[in-house]
């Protein structure tokens, strides 16, 4: 038993629903109690879908338990087939139905429905949403994909995008366009937009492009083994990774067509002088493994940030995540407990978080700006505009989204120069954000007011030796004059410096000695 307040992933049947809802002419019958129908709203509200997810829930009640829940399931399956006439039917049990052991797969098999019925085993008490999506897609491929002649021209399948995925809609469009520029046609894109009949002809493609290992790695491996289709390993997030991905596709397809880079802006935007202020910004990354690993490289190599922490909530990616973190000189945080993530962020005191909606809230609480790079999603993660994460346009989007929460270039200098100005004090925040600046109490200088309210940056959770080192009043006030977005770093560095020097008290001098010591 584990106490959870907020969770990064839903149960596995929600993952299976993401696959079913992304597809067309497929229906799913879920053996589940009525309350589990809440899952529909994820798709209709968060993703603003204009159709109900193609899912029939049996909605058994307590009084059915002793009686005939199996009968209920069969009625629901028969009705669903009659009403929706799908090309194939997925059947599964939610956490409650798993306990009553009706075996939906076995029941459906006895019914002799005239379409393929694909049973899913979703161990609700062990696995989670991403597993459910990955497993559902694997079973669909196993049941439906037939051995077929390869197409004459070089084609590939794009696999991984699902309903309710983080920017899947736009990534799919971007990568489809990129491949077409390279002369590689897309045979089938799945699950998103595919029918069961499309799954059946996946074997025609020469190779697979795997966009999201979270939802389609098992299928990619199975297709490689059974259908001899190699798959791409590089996730094209960021300019460098997109270029490497292009090379990988060239090797698989033999394409020699040039790719137009003229609309890629990230490299110049990052190199231009206004971006100098991004240098060494300390960022903490958390989310699903794929997005975090890709974003970490972009953060370090293409934005010039310093990565001070990274991790993921899906254990399936723990191994590559740990390896990459090690390369960055860090220890990966692998957890699905958001309280652990909050504690780690507080400890690392980054200047920015690249995370999920959970980290956005953590950031709000700690006063640290955050940009969202990964699921779990929120209605804000489905913008009306085209906004991919992948490919060259995706790289441009990354630049804009990551810079947006920060105080902009020259504004940072103005903040330092005019730090006692009433509009530039800590709580005012970046000027391009809507929130109203809190006026300072009249008669107080910014520094004093900030000192009184304790500043916007909370003290680090575990200062090096909190008991032995004391900030003197003057030093504490001086610290408050430092802009809030670097104050956390200044505090940590000063304490570390004082600790190393064996000092018990921090004075204004200590603060500036530390500053000189750590200056780069």
């Amino acid at each position, binding site marked *: 038993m584990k106490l959870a307040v907020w969770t990064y992933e839903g149960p596995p049947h929600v993952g299976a629903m993401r696959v079913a809802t992304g597809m067309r002419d497929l229906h799913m019958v879920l053996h589940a109690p009525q309350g589990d*129908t809440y899952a529909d709203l994820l798709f209709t509200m968060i993703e603003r879908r204009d159709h109900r997810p193609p899912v029939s829930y049996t909605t058994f009640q307590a009084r059915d338990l002793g009686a005939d829940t199996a009968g209920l399931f069969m009625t629901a399956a028969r009705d669903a087939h009659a009403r929706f006439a799908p090309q194939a039917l997925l059947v599964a049990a939610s956490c409650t139905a798993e306990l009553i052991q009706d075996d939906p797969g076995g029941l459906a098999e006895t019914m002799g429905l005239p379409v393929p019925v694909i049973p899913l085993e979703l161990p609700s*008490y062990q696995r989670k949403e991403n597993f459910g999506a990955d497993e559902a897609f694997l079973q669909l491929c196993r049941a439906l994909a037939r051995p077929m002649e390869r197409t004459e021209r070089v084609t590939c399948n794009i696999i991984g995008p699902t309903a309710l995925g983080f920017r899947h809609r736009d990534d799919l469009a971007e990568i489809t366009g990129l491949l077409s520029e390279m002369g590689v046609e897309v045979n089938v894109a799945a699950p998103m937009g595919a029918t069961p009949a499309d799954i059946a002809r996946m074997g025609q493609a020469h190779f697979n492009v795997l966009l999201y290992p979270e939802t389609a790695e098992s299928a990619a491996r199975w297709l490689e083994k059974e259908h001899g289709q190699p798959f791409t390993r590089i996730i094209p997030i960021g300019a460098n990774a997109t270029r490497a991905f292009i090379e990988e596709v060239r090797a698989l397809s033999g394409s020699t067509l040039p790719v137009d880079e003229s609309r890629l802006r990230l490299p110049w935007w990052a190199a231009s002088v206004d971006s100098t202020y991004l240098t060494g910004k300390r960022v903490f990354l958390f989310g699903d493994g794929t997005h975090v690993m890709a974003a970490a490289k972009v953060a370090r190599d293409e934005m010039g940030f310093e990565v001070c922490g990274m991790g993921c909530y899906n254990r399936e990616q723990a191994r590559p995540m740990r390896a990459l973190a090690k390369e960055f000189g860090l220890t990966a945080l692998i957890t699905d407990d958001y309280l652990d993530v909050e504690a780690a962020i507080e400890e690392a005191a980054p200047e920015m978080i690249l995370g999920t909606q959970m980290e956005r809230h953590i950031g709000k609480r700690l006063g640290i700006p955050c940009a969202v790079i990964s699921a779990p999603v929120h209605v804000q993660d489905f913008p009306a505009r085209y906004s991919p994460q992948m490919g060259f346009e995706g790289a441009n989007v990354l630049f804009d989204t990551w810079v947006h929460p920060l105080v902009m270039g020259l504004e940072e200098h103005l903040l330092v120069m005019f730090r006692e100005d009433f509009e530039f004090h800590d709580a005012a925040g970046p000027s391009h954000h809507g929130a109203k600046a809190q006026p300072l109490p009249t008669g107080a200088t910014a520094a004093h007011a900030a000192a009184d309210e304790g500043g916007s940056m909370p003290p680090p959770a575990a200062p090096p030796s909190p008991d032995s080192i004391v900030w003197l009043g003057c030093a504490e006030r001086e610290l408050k004059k430092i802009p809030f977005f670097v104050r956390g770093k200044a505090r940590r560095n000063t304490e570390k410096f004082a600790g190393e020097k064996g000092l018990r008290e921090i004075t204004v001098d200590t603060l500036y000695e530390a500053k000189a010591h750590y200056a780069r």
Partner: protein
Amino acid sequence: MSIQPTSGCTDTPVLRERGQREVFCGLTGIIWLHRKMQDAFFLVVGSRTCAHLLQSAAGVMIFAEPRFGTAILEEKDLAGMADANAELDREVARLLERRPDIRQLFLVGSCPSEVIKLDLSRAAERLSEVHAPRVRVLNYSGSGIETTFTEGEDACLASMVPALPGTEARELLMVGALPDVVEDQALALLEQIGVGPVRCLPAKRAELDAAIGPNTRYALTQPFLGDTHAALQRRGAQRIAAPFPFGAEGTTLWLKAVAAEFGIGPDKVDAVVAAPRARAEKAIAAAAATLQGKRVFFMPDSQLEIPLARFLTRECGMQAVEISTPFLHAELHRPELELIARGPTISEGQDVDLQLDRVRATRPDLTICGLGLANPLEAEGLATKWAIELVFTPVHFYEQAGDLAALFARPLRRREILRSSHPNRMEAAE
């Protein structure tokens, strides 16, 4: 206020349906109950699904650390009962240590905990002994196999009744979790009328708990409190039958019924409520201009459907096509059904696909439904109002009556405004 000389819809045969239901389970009530009871923590003993439902219904994370959580059962808990109980005790101890502000802890049963027959009432007794007197531990079921949406609040309040102290005093108990601002308004009106003392269930904090006994008279402010009603009767308390306090009419009738029970005549009530009632009527009239003559269809969600249909048909000039409720408590709803003119289909339970067929066939101007159905219906050119907003928003008594009407008017006004650009232009313009 004239009550029409008719038995209204009381004799209308009820269409009973049993099929796929598209409705939340009782766990959802935790979202508003934990805000109301400021020293209570709601610990769901359930699965990842239950945790995900709470998070999704709450609209992701509203509060950094809310006073609810889910003890997620894992494979090893399902293996042996002794383990699950020990694990629960450990999680509770850890929780109470971290949250010294908690005075009441509700262990909330879910489908999984009920199917594996984890006995939460025994667990609550055991934990009460360990953590008394600081914390009182109660239990109820919010599971989807036992409860529908608002029935979770009913089960919660019913679980509190046996634990309330006894009294011989003649007091009014106002039953139902209302937002504080609404509760204060109601208490002020009752005081001006001369009814008192008044207690509330649930109270804001454990130490404010009401005492009950044979002289307690109680009035329900919510129509879904059937089990709480039965539990109060078992303690000898007596219910004041009345329509529910929605709209100017409902509020007036509710206050008059309460006043009569306390020996106060309708004239006194009329005098006290004249000003707020006039304000309410004026505010309703503003929204009613939009609602007048429009046809409304209620899908079954909150059990508020019948009282709200009464309000919309009698005070806002709407016509009801179908009024559907997950469960129709005949005794509690009788005063409401008497007021609704014959005509609409009254249905109980659901077969969602068949019901959607009826929605499409009758093409109402406004459909009240759950969040899962709203956008799909809008995309078909049918305006909707989310049922969950009716339980999350202050809608009772006079000062909120205009807001209540406006909740229904807003989707219609919005469609009208967007007429020229709506993706479903044809239907929108018809």
